[in-house]
């Protein structure tokens, strides 16, 4: 951790508003993008990131200098997003995903494609919510299956199988995206769903 950040954190611990604004300016974009990855809509992402920042400022004393501050922030956003997801679980539509299979030919086609970050965002956004959570947590945020299972309240093997299915589903979606001439249009009829 650099000295500037350490000073900023110390000032935030003293609840100095100016320092808190500076901290927000430094990490606000990162926090918001993590929140967007874990939620269905920007409105939900804003709610989650609001709550996450309040938690950050209130519990800054519990941050240990031995750890990565950015990692600590990410974990707070992820935890807040999962809590938000659980609260709104009853509003999420369910979809059977067993019918989704990527063929070997799709995967071969996928290998030759290069995707942008926005395209990948859209593809992940089309994953069923439960799959998307596991994929985000494992692949992008680097969590272990044990942590994921604890946070989501699922079995470790369930986490592994969901990750595997999420990968296949994502590859299939990306392959179809690469096949579509105008990738800006909706790529699939699949709605946002959960397992």
């Amino acid at each position, binding site marked *: 951790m650099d000295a500037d950040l350490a000073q900023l954190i110390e000032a935030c611990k*003293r*609840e*100095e*508003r100016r320092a*808190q*604004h500076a901290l*927000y300016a430094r990490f*606000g*974009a*990162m*926090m*918001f*993008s*993590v929140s*967007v*990855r874990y939620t269905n809509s920007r409105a939900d992402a*804003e709610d989650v*990131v*609001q709550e996450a*920042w*309040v938690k950050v*400022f*209130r519990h800054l004393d519990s941050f240990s200098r031995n750890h990565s501050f950015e990692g600590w922030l990410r974990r707070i956003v992820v935890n807040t997003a999962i809590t938000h997801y659980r609260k709104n679980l009853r509003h999420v539509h369910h979809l059977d995903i067993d019918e989704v299979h990527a063929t070997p030919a799709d*995967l071969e086609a*996928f*290998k030759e494609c290069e*995707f*942008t*970050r926005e395209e*990948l965002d859209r593809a992940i956004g089309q994953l069923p919510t439960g799959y998307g959570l596991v994929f985000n947590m494992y*692949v*992008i945020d680097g969590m272990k299956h044990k942590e994921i299972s604890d946070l989501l309240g699922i079995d470790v093997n369930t986490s592994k199988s969901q990750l*595997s299915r999420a*990968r296949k589903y994502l*590859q299939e979606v990306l392959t179809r995206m690469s096949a579509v001439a105008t990738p800006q249009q909706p790529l699939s009829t699949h709605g946002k769903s959960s397992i």
Partner: protein
Amino acid sequence: MENQAFDRYVQSLYAQESLTPPAALESAIFARLDAVQPAAPKRRMGWWMASLAGLVLAGWLVGTTWQAGDPSGAAEVGAASAGAVGAVGTANVAAGADVAAGAAGPAAGAGKAGDEVPAVETAAGVEVARGAAAVRSRNTSSSPSLVSTPVPSLSSQAAPCEPVRKLEVRPFQRTGSVGEKGLVYPRGEREVVAMPATITVRQ
């Protein structure tokens, strides 16, 4: 594509994830933060005000305690000094029975040996009265030059002292009647009896 390669590919795309949040989000966050965590300067000012108020309160308490303790201490000092001075035969300090309870001192001091002095209700007052009377009686006999002290002389008090009836609280005796014993409290546990009290000062 192998799973690990795919994961690395995705991670590379998210390595520097940064999505500009809407401008209104910052104000919303800090407005919400204000609700749970008031701004630091205000809180610190509140802390200073609380500290100052605490100091003022503590000072007032100390002052009050000192003032409340002083009369009793003065009474003790007055009584003690009255006795000590009585031994020495100095009326000046005995007249320092400016203690409220010892106010009967001058009157007692003005009396001669064998006079009845008004009884006072507190032990300290009685002590002071006794001390002052003793001093006074010595002064009148052995060192009249000291009579010019603030202690008023007997001649200055033309009217003789009326005996003071002393109130005593005694355990109630059911055999006694109201007319004889005095006022009986409704609960019948204690009674107040008016008793004539006199103190004889001997030389």
